[in-house]
């Protein structure tokens, strides 16, 4: 369960609906953005068409589609899966790699701004869980390795 998954049966239903299309902020505001085309290609066995496409990153994960979806699935699920595949193939925006590196190294996406805190009279930030996090992440990867063998 700790791996990303895509439910093709739900996606099949999804491809015939479109209840979420007119509430999706990217569909409404980004010319050419249409997850229905991505879903169609996934179902037709052509998902690779989208790996290098900017569209799959333009889903804002606002979860409007999830709320509208009568299957409670939403086309964000397809976009998330496509982003995971694209990242595994190295086809991600450069910023994603920078953010990820910082996350695995420090367990955070930035360190508390100490001089500004002092100026504002804020207390010392609490200890981070970085060390424990790194252990946990290593354990997760070890377990995956064992499964693969």
């Amino acid at each position, binding site marked *: 369960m700790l791996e990303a998954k895509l439910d093709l049966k739900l996606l099949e239903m999804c491809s015939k609906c479109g209840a979420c299309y007119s509430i999706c902020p990217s569909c409404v505001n980004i010319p050419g953005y249409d997850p229905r085309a991505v879903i169609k290609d996934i179902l037709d066995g052509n998902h690779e068409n989208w790996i290098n496409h900017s569209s799959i990153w333009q889903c804002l994960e606002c*979860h409007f589609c999830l709320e509208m979806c009568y299957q409670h699935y939403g086309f964000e699920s397809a976009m998330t899966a496509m982003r995971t595949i694209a990242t595994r193939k190295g086809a991600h925006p450069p910023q994603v790699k920078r953010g990820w590196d910082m996350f695995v190294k420090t*367990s955070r996406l930035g360190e*508390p701004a100490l001089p500004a*805190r002092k100026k504002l009279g804020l207390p010392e930030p609490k*200890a981070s869980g970085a060390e424990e996090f790194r252990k946990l992440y290593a354990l997760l990867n070890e377990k995956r390795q064992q499964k693969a063998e």
Partner: protein
Amino acid sequence: MKEFAVFWGCTIQTRFPFIEKSTRMILESFKLPYRDIDGFTCCPEKSLVNNVDHGAFVVTAARNVALVDELGYDLVSPCTGCVSNLATVRGELNANPREKAEVNGLLKEIGREFTGTASLKHLVPFFHDTVGVHAIKQKIKRDFKGMRIALHYGCHMIRPSHALRADDPLNPVKFDNLIRGLGAESLQFMTKLMCCGQGLDRIDEHDRALDFARIKLKELKAMKADALVLCCPSCFLQFDNNQFLMEKEGERFGIPIIYFTELLGLALGFSAEELGMNNHRIDCAPFLKRWEELSARPSPSKGIEEGLTGPNALG
């Protein structure tokens, strides 16, 4: 009231420590039992971590929730994203016992256990449900009567609703209730629930992120809103910082962006400076000036009471 840990999140502590400041000030004012605890990491941020590695997303969030579970605390955060991500994982694990066992198998090796019992709340629904509009009204020193405020909920304050159960995901009311409780008018407008679009800045699409900010700011300018009030550091970044960048290019909107904690802090009698509002990129002075002007006006009932009392005029 149950003790609760505050989950500050990376963005507030890294970029906007003044939001932490105003949050602490209002929590102190209401004498709420908040705690700072050791050991939190990034929530983690869904659009980054979940896209790269779903497993890392789940175990990191589960570990953060386990920290409060173990202490018997609840969790409150002034960041919408943090609460939404933590709650999403808690929902996923509570709905999948096998996955929960798998995660707990890993957590056990670092001496933790996820039970998923702590309540996870964003600051706005927390103030609405736990403190209550009535208690806030009693506590404030000065209201915002006459001020026209536009609210931006922020997607992750209310969605995904199955995990957050914070408010109606398509027609939320709690933030509106709080703003009205403070005496202001909560404007109703077309783009009220539109996503801020900050996510586009995180995938190297800065111009498109500006497009999204522009849509809402244009409408607010046309409506002559006094301010945009929100309670999410990402949305704050989008509307304060990106509005500033557009102004530098000559596109002026002049919409002050005010964090909920700052608005409440002002009503409680703190000065804008004490609250750290001078750290905003977009000047809040027009908002404060209008507030001053309104409070300088005579109250509508002035002179009425004298006119109604004493002997009648006809003898």
